[in-house]
Structure formats: C-alpha cells, structure tokens
C-alpha cells in the first residue's frame, strides 16, 4: 500500500497486463518461490542476508543455491527476449504514428489522497484501542515506501552478477553483511539471543535456494520485491503472490511435520558454537571475501570477452 501510494505520486504506477505466457511465468515463479521458501527456509532476505550476518551456517549455503538459481532464471529471461528481438528487422518496418506523450495526469493527486487515507486508517486503529495494529500498519507503509523508492532488489543483485557480469549491487550486499555481522557478533557474544536468525542447515538450503532463485527471477522479484511490484501494478506479481502462498500453504498439508522439523531439515548450526568465535569469523568473512573475489573475477572476464 505504501509502495502503491508513492508509485502513484511519482507517476510510476501503471496496471501492467501480461499475456498468457507472462501469467504462466508468474505462476511458475510463485510456485517455485513457495516451494523454495519452505525448503530453504525462509525467504532470500532472511535466509541468505540476515542468516549470514547472524553466523548461521545455512546463510552461505542458501547463497550458493540462490546464485545458481538466479543464473538459470536469468538465462531463461534472456533467451525469451532474444527471440523477440531476433524477429525485428528495422529495414522492413512500416511507417506509422509513433506513441506520443500525454501531459495530463491525476496520478500524483490520487497518490496523495491514497496516502492520507492510509494514515487515517492507522489513526482509526489507534482510536479503537489497537495501537499495536496501528503501529504495524504504519511500519508496513513506511517499509513499502522505502523499498519502492530505493529499488533495493536482491533479485537483480544475484541475477546481474552472471547475466550482465555486473556485481556492483551484490558487492554492496556483501559489505552490508560484513558490517552487520560485527553488530551481531557483539550482541551474540554477550549472550543476547544467540539463536536468533539461526536456521536449520543442510543440503535443503542449497536446493531450496536454487528453486527460490529460479522462481524469484521468473516472478520478477523476491518475497518483498513482488509485494512492492504488485503495488506498482505488475499483474505478474499478483499471480506469483497467489501461487506462492498456495504452494507454501499446501506444503504444511503434504509434509507431515512443521517447517524446520522432521527428516528433511538438518539441525540449526550456530557457527560460533561449533568453531568458536575466531573460527566463525573466519568462515563468514572468508565466504564474503571469496564471493567478492569471484564477482570481481567475473566482471573482469566481461571486458576480456569484448
């Protein structure tokens, strides 16, 4: 909702319809994301980003899966668009009226009305004795606005490393993990919630990450990303949200145990406990460093290729 209102204000909202294949891609993407989420678990933001900085072994493993998955997904998208471009022949195209710009728009006006009504809703929550609901609602709106404006995109971060050989975003993601890991280390070494954000570790991290990785690229956004995009009017994201929720919901019905329990999931590995703090630092920062070098190596290969 927050994303929708700022998208309207900045005239970025448009109901973006898709054809059958587009919806199919959204549905498949959502399905894969739903499946990946329960396997990994949880989504890519927590499963990779937060888990790594929280010294959970599952984080780097999920990262490997996401990296490969995003590569496969990106290749699929690139092949699709390349086929469409192949068919273009500039010499043969007919002369026709070009699309011209429209000056008038009520989008910005609508956006302001929308955001004011959102604020009113949270006030209503507050007055009816639900201050926590009002707070969560407001937090959601602000979060939506920040995400929409900043265009943080974990999908692009993973995808562009291999497809465009541009690792700029991912490098910043890695640096942010490194900085936050120090904060987590300070808190956790003092005994503050040591198992917070530590998830089961095992082969399912890699497989889940891989499945989620393909899904997020096809659907056009990570967990939060497709929510933001749905606010910008992407119908493909609407489809992905629907199938994603259905899949992960159905999972609890099919799989007899709760998520993170039973035969499928390994036990949570909190690295400092197994290796001591020095060892844990070595593993996490070693992982970040190797990943960073790997990206740099890929980027350099791009210029050799030209």
């Amino acid at each position, binding site marked *: 909702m927050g994303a929708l209102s700022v998208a309207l204000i900045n005239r970025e909202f448009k109901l973006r319809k898709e*054809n059958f294949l587009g919806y199919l891609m959204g549905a498949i993407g959502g399905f894969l994301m739903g499946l990946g989420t329960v396997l990994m678990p949880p989504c890519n933001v927590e499963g990779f980003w937060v888990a790594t900085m929280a010294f959970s072994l599952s984080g780097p493993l999920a990262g490997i899966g996401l990296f490969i998955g995003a590569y496969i997904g990106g290749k699929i998208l690139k092949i699709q668009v390349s086929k469409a471009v192949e068919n273009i022949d500039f010499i043969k195209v007919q002369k026709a009226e070009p699309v011209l710009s429209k000056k008038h728009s009520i989008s910005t006006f609508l956006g302001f009305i929308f955001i004011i009504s959102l604020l009113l809703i949270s006030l209503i929550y507050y007055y009816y004795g639900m201050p926590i609901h009002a707070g969560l609602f407001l937090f959601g709106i602000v979060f939506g606005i920040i995400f929409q404006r900043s265009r943080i995109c974990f999908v692009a971060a993973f995808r562009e490393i291999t497809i465009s050989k541009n690792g700029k975003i991912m490098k910043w993601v890695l640096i942010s993990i490194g900085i936050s890991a120090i904060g987590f280390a300070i808190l956790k070494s003092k005994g503050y919630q040591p198992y917070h954000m530590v998830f089961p570790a095992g082969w399912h991290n890699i497989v889940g990450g891989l499945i989620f990785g393909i899904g997020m690229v096809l659907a056009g956004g990570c967990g939060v990303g497709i929510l933001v995009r749905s606010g910008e009017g992407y119908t*493909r994201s609407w489809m992905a949200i629907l199938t994603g929720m259905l899949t992960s919901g159905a999972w609890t019905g099919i799989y007899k145990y709760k998520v993170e329990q039973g035969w499928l999931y390994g036990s949570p590995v909190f690295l400092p406990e197994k290796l001591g703090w020095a060892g844990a630092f070595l593993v996490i920062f070693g992982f970040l460093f190797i990943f960073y070098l790997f990206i740099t190596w890929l980027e350099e290969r791009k210029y050799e290729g030209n």
Partner: protein
Amino acid sequence: MKEIKVVKINDSYYQVDMRGWMCPYPKYAIEKLIEKLPSQSCMDLLVDCPSATKDVPEVVKEKGLRVEKVILINDGEWCITICNY
C-alpha cells in the same frame, strides 16, 4: 512469446515499443537492439518499468552510444532516445 512492436518515424528514426515487458527484459534486449539499428539512426525505446530508465542508459553508454533523453511520457511509461552517431 510476446512481440516487440517497431514503427518507423522517418528514415533514420524508429520507435521500439517494449511496454509490457517487465524488467529486466528491456535491459537484456537493448544490446541486440542497438546492434540491429541501422547506422546513423536513432530509436525511441518505450518501456514501462522504472528500473529500465537507469539500466538501459547504463548498457547503452557502455557500448559507446549516446542516450539523447529519458522522458516520462505517461503514467508508468518512459521513452528512452538512443542514437548511434
């Protein structure tokens, strides 16, 4: 697969309509599009995803071509003008 509509405005000016192609499709398409563009020409690339207004010019400049302008033409729709001279 969806088609990309192209119209000719004059002999050295084309309009490529990629509205409806979400990101990152335009970014992946632009590399091949500028290869296909006849020499001494310009093209308008119409897109409807915000990220393309940043991504596409980046790729174009990397290829050594010129981005004339990026303008908002309608709600959620942009026009990126690219020239290869």
